[in-house]
């Protein structure tokens, strides 16, 4: 069964490219949105196993999206990987670093790094040790 991944980034080009790459692996069902204020409603319907979310977005930043997920009983345990352009790649561990309890990766992220992080987060979530309830 394919894992469901929700992509949230105001840059349509980034979500489109991520979706194509993730779908090409044949392992994921992917939905992408470019309006972060719709993230919670979309997630309630899509029921993602994991969210990949930008940090700096207009209207609602990544921290606010994470806080909204944490307050929602249905979504509170969904792991979130943040993508951010405000750090450089060498400031981030090869398998991602943490903001609070959430994993983050520096843009531009390479596909193999993204897949490694997704796998580690899905593994952790499956084991009941997901990145839950943290805020930026």
């Amino acid at each position, binding site marked *: 069964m394919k894992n469901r991944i929700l992509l949230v980034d105001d*840059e349509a*080009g*980034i979500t489109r*490219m*991520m979706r*194509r*790459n993730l779908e*090409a692996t044949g392992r994921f069902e992917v939905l992408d949105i470019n309006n972060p204020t719709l993230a919670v409603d979309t997630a309630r319907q899509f029921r993602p196993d994991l969210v990949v979310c930008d940090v*700096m977005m207009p209207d609602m930043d990544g921290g606010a999206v994470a806080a909204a997920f944490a307050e929602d009983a249905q979504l509170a345990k969904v792991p979130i990987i943040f*993508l951010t*352009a*405000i*750090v*450089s*790649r*060498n400031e981030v561990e090869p398998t991602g670093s943490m903001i609070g309890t959430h994993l983050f990766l*520096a*843009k*531009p*992220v*390479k*596909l*193999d790094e993204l897949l490694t992080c997704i796998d580690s987060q899905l593994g952790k979530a499956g084991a009941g040790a997901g990145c839950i309830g943290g805020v930026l």
Partner: protein
Amino acid sequence: MNSRQVEKMLEQLIVAAENLSMGRYDDHEQLFAMTDSEHYPPVITRFAEAFGMMSVKVEAREFRLEQMIGELTIARDELTIANERLQQSLLDLRQAQMQLIQQAKLETVGRLAAGVAHEVKNPLAIIQLGVDFLAGELKDNRVWHETVIDMEDAVQRADRVIKGMLDFSRSEQLELQETDLHSVIDDSLLLVRHELNNKDISVELGQKVSLPLLMLDRNKLKQVFINLFMNAVHAMPEGGTLTIAASLHVVTPADLATCCSSQARPAAGNRAVLLKIADTGTGIQEEAVTRLFDPFFTTKPVGVGTGLGLSVTRKILELHQAVISLGNRKDRQGAEAVLLFTL
């Protein structure tokens, strides 16, 4: 009184006049003695007296003149010194002005860098993910696959420049703690060990003298050392030796001559930790020496250097009240970085 006596007196007066003309004033007493004699006619004694008085006054004036010349000489020397100080002040002022301009330029570059870095990273992310997608799709076609790999290299190069800009804009935030300089050097060497081994570069560490703990931002200092070590690696493509030696040092005027443009300039006589990092590479070209610390200046091939490493390095060191100078080695071919951490 006979004519012989008058003649003798006139001869004395002539000798006195000749002496006077040569600046000798020894004849006063003799002249005045003549005026007391009753053997001479009054007109002659009056003439001798007048001549004697003239001689005394000329001597007094000459003495005063010499005094004035002495005073003028002293005044001239004082003016010369004052003028030299004024010239030095002018130079210092110009240097301070240049530093202010340079500082303002660097601050502007820093602010721009942070903004540009963020704006460029998003499009770069799209290209990177696009390249990753195409690399998977085109992996069976050698030419297309190579093209995609070239595109990937270009993205990585652009990302390195962005990283340098972010480093530059962030170098002002320090987390200081008491730190052993030797341990930071060792940690930094570990991080570039792979590069050193690849280029067949050996490392010679000087004697590990006991150094006082320094208030340093360990991560920022590692960044400094990695920059300097990597510069040495790039300067020794055919291999060589990287020499690192730290010691306790008293700052000398000669040290200041090489680091005087820095804002964190120490004073002569200050105690400091001196760190020398030297390579056996190609050395620094003369025309590059004055621009080494300018942002975006690089002598490395396209794609190898961002031109931000040394400007970031100096900025970090200045925030630690440390200074750096770079030049060619005197003992053999190669470059040498000299760092001074004031205690």
